[in-house]
């Protein structure tokens, strides 16, 4: 190993961040000279970013943190000032009180009129003053809003965006109550069937081009554009082509107005009735962060939630729309014992007794890698007690190079880290089947899988002494169960998943499960509690905190300290 030069510091201390001092609404703010742009590359800090760091959010439409800057909406125009410099000495000119003399921005051809800068694209300079609420700034905003509204249909009462519409919000916060407009409005296409999942109302569109930039620069499907010219500009797909990529619904999220609406959601629910719950998408191993919009116990939509380490601000359409099964009428609602409806207490009591009889080595567990990490941990504890073989069912598809992972289980890594499977996932299943066939395995616990599709057919299941099945929807396996324990969708419980990249993320409960269905971790606690001497905590937090003490990969984590964006764990 070469000797380290003594002059150089042995440890890498990050260089001090170069800063710039500006004023935002009169308050001095020190901000980094550069900040990440939409691609994360460092660029000169913009006025908008600096204002944000100073606690002032400047209203904007076309600007989006994750999209290229275009500066077309002009909503973020702000009056500003810069220090007057002595042209000879290049030093700031001072006022009598010693403060730097500031020149307010004015039109070059009309020095009495303030000039705005678009804060989204204008870099700050030392000593710059940003007047985010000066009369001139307010007037510019009022004017832009008036322009945006003159040809807008003003159909908020029938618009799905109402309640989360930036045009509404800014009009209230920054607009004026009336307009002088007395002309005939421009009419544009309405109810345009843009693709299988999206409707477009061009009259509501403010032409911010967020959707166009998203699909071009993020989704990589340059499918949208603007047709016609001037005031007749309209967002469109090529005639006859469908805007149907698997990320199309993100455009609905980022559309600041009601121009793009989700066919799945439109006209179904007013957004202000929705309860928002932070959760995770379970459709693949990426673990996109989502917000579940629900009213009473019905889920109305999934929307992506920002997480730079996972999904940025996006999610795929297939994951987003994969919620309808949660409310299916044939959901498993009842606890069943040998085909008869039972109660949790009776079933668990009987099950304890049955398991108590099971000799070592006669039990096997197949735990779906869509169960929560806590549930998998409890199942593993149960397995240890019987020396049971455990495994999960692999589920793969094509990765799309963006958010959809090849691994279609949402907790493959959780299952591995908890010891449910090792080596090759699913490799134990044929052995378990063989064990059943030879009579060595007499008791099988199946959580969240229809094992009849994976080599343990109905005949084999029928030969078991005890078949314990927990699931959400009926299947050949649930029909064969001696003990049927109805479980919960992720939206109906709390827990964590570990994604394909080793990010442990927690999710919260949005809706109640139907009937007697219970979160699996709850009754698993009971089962483990009944069988082992160690106390199992009665709360999810407790289970989690116990789990992290036992699993090295999770060491140091604590339920309360896992933020909304999760924590990295070594895989």
């Amino acid at each position, binding site marked *: 190993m070469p000797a380290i030069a003594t002059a150089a510091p042995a440890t890498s201390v990050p260089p001090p961040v170069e800063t710039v001092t500006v004023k935002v609404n009169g308050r001095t703010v020190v901000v980094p000279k550069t900040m990440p742009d939409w691609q994360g590359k460092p660029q000169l800090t913009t006025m908008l970013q600096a204002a944000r760091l100073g606690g002032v959010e400047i209203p904007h439409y076309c600007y989006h943190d994750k999209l290229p*800057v*275009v*500066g*077309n*909406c*002009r*909503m973020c*125009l702000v009056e500003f000032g810069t220090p007057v410099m002595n042209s000879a000495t290049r030093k700031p000119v001072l006022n009598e009180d010693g403060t730097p003399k500031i020149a307010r921005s004015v*039109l070059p*051809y*009309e020095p009495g*009129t303030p*000039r*705005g800068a*678009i804060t989204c*694209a*204008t*870099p700050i300079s030392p000593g710059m003053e940003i007047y985010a609420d000066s009369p001139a700034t307010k007037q*510019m905003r009022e*004017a*832009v809003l*008036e*322009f*945006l*509204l*003159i*040809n807008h249909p*003003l159909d908020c009462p029938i618009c799905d965006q109402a309640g989360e519409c930036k045009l509404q919000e800014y*009009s209230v916060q920054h*607009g004026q*109550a*009336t*307009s*002088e*407009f*007395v*002309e*005939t409005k*421009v009419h544009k296409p309405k109810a345009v069937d843009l693709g299988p999942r999206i409707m477009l109302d061009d009259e509501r569109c*403010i*032409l911010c081009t967020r959707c166009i930039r998203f699909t071009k620069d993020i989704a990589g499907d340059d499918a949208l554009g*603007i047709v*016609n*010219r*001037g*005031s*007749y*500009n309209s967002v469109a797909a090529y005639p006859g082509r469908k805007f149907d990529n698997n990320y199309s619904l993100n455009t609905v999220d980022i559309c600041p107005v009601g121009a793009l609406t989700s066919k799945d959601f439109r006209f179904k629910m007013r957004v202000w009735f929705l309860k928002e719950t932070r959760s995770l998408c379970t459709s693949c191993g990426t673990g996109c962060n989502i917000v579940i919009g629900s009213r009473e116990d019905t889920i109305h939509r999934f929307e992506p939630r920002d997480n730079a380490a996972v999904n940025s601000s996006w999610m795929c359409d297939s994951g987003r729309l994969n919620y309808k099964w949660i409310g299916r009428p044939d959901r498993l609602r009842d606890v069943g014992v040998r085909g008869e409806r039972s109660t949790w207490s009776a079933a668990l009591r009987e099950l304890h007794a049955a398991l108590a009889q099971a000799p070592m080595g006669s039990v096997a567990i197949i735990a779906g890698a869509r169960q929560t990490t806590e549930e998998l941990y409890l199942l593993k504890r149960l397995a240890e007690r019987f020396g049971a073989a455990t495994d999960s069912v692999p589920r793969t598809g094509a990765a799309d190079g963006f958010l959809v992972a090849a691994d279609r289980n949402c907790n493959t890594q959780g299952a591995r880290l908890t010891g449910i499977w090792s080596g090759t996932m699913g490799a134990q299943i044929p052995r378990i089947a063989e064990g059943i066939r030879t009579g060595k395995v007499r008791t099988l616990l199946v959580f969240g899988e229809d094992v009849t599709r994976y080599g343990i057919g109905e005949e084999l299941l029928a030969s078991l002494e005890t078949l314990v099945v927990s699931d959400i929807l009926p299947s050949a396996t649930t029909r064969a169960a001696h003990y049927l324990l109805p479980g919960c969708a992720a939206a109906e419980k709390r827990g964590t998943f570990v994604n394909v990249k080793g990010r442990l993320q927690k999710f919260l409960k949005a809706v109640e499960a139907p009937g007697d269905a219970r979160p699996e971790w709850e009754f698993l606690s009971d089962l483990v509690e009944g069988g082992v001497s160690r106390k199992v905590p009665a709360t999810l937090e407790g289970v989690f905190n116990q789990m992290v003490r036992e699993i090295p990969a999770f060491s140091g984590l604590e339920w309360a300290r896992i933020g909304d964006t999760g924590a990295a764990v070594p895989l």
Partner: protein
Amino acid sequence: MDSNHDKQIQSLLCYRYTIGQCGTGEKIERKSIESSIAMPQELKLILKHADEPGYGPDIGCYLKHGGYETLKKALKAPGRELPDGKKLSAQEAFRGDVRTSGLRGRGGAGFSAGLKWSFVDRSSGKPIYLICNADESEPGTFKDRQILHKDPHQLIEGMVLSCWANDVKLAYIYIRGEFPEGARLLNRALAEAREKEFLGKNILGTGYDLEIWVHRGAGAYICGEETGLIESLEGKRAYPRIKPPYFPAVLGLYLCPTIVNNVETLCHVKHIAAMGPAEFARLGTPNNTGTRIVSLSGDVQHPGYFEVEVGKVTIGELIFHENFGRGLKPGRQLKAVIPGGSSSKVLKAGEVFSLKRKGADGQMIPVDVPMLDLPYDFDSLQSAGTMSGSGAVIVMDDSRSMVDALANLAEFYAHESCGQCTPCREGALWMAKGLHRLTHGGGRKEDAAYLTHIAQNIQGRTICAFGEAAAWPVLSFVEKFWEEFQARGEADAAARTEAGSGANSNLKPYSYA
């Protein structure tokens, strides 16, 4: 010189007085001028040969008239050593010459051409592009058309020189789509130039390679805006780019450093090379050097294009003098002048401007200058609150309705707004609709203020200068001819009341609340 200048102003005042007295009495008018000052006349640098009988756009004719000699000389020129011992390459030296010549862009903004070149990022390692802006489309302007159609080789020579000076290997001529003949002539001229080794690989054996291609627009005024033009040349909608960060000198065509110069500007580059910067700067007036081609149209007896020394001819002379517009139509009085293309602010007959002039003691003193006596140059018109823009003078006499004229222009801007940014997209059509209503019997007495309100919310708020271009005609017409706008609205309102249809729902203010 200063006293001389005062004398000139005095004589101009006298001239103005004469016109006022005599209306359209051309003879007296000319005589009075002849007796007072030197005859204002054309000085043809660019158009020296263009209109000579028998002069054609082919290279043979151009060569016969000394064409490409300047290029040959320039490419062989050695570098230059400055007094301080610093050595300049021939290209650097020539770039300096263009700057010291004082040449200002002839496309509209009047920005120093040499300074524009000096902004070019020469250290990026990326290719540098040059684009000739031949998208002549500012209403009232028809000067580039003359060069393109009559003397394309002059432009090519200017371009090759400019490209050579700026290490450009690939250049384009962006010609407006409505000049199909111009595009054909240019293509032929470029082929001829290639054949004679003025273009292509190893130009004149110097090892310098340059290719120039013709690129046709397709009917969009906004392509005259340099970043809109660049987008259009990239095969996109001509949406101007935000600046920062997309300054063409740094992030232009294909995000490479790019120079965009007007046809006339590039021709001047050839003349600067031919005559030297000092000689060029002697033409015209200080800070307004050289000649420029003025396009004169509207209500004059003799519309046309005139190449004059910048600042040596007044607006009044352009309109009334025998050598230029030859006055108004019989019996007509001057009403208004649009001095620099339709985007420039209108000047009203009889307006007097206070301009700063150097007095006898060298101090700047304010001098009252009547509109017609404004020297036709960049600075004087700017001081008068307008601009010489693309050099297009549109004259309107007292038979004209300013409301109708503005409605015509507003329709142009509504049609030409690219629609990218909010104020222009929505405002340009809004103004056009308002003016359409005002010119079609739906006027209101508040319409003058209404139009001003819209225009004020456009200017200075847009991505490109189209915002100003659309707003300035409205702001200036309405301000300077307020009574006329007011009267038109009031007359309509009165007529409606009389007809009992005052409750036209279309005319009620729209409320968002």
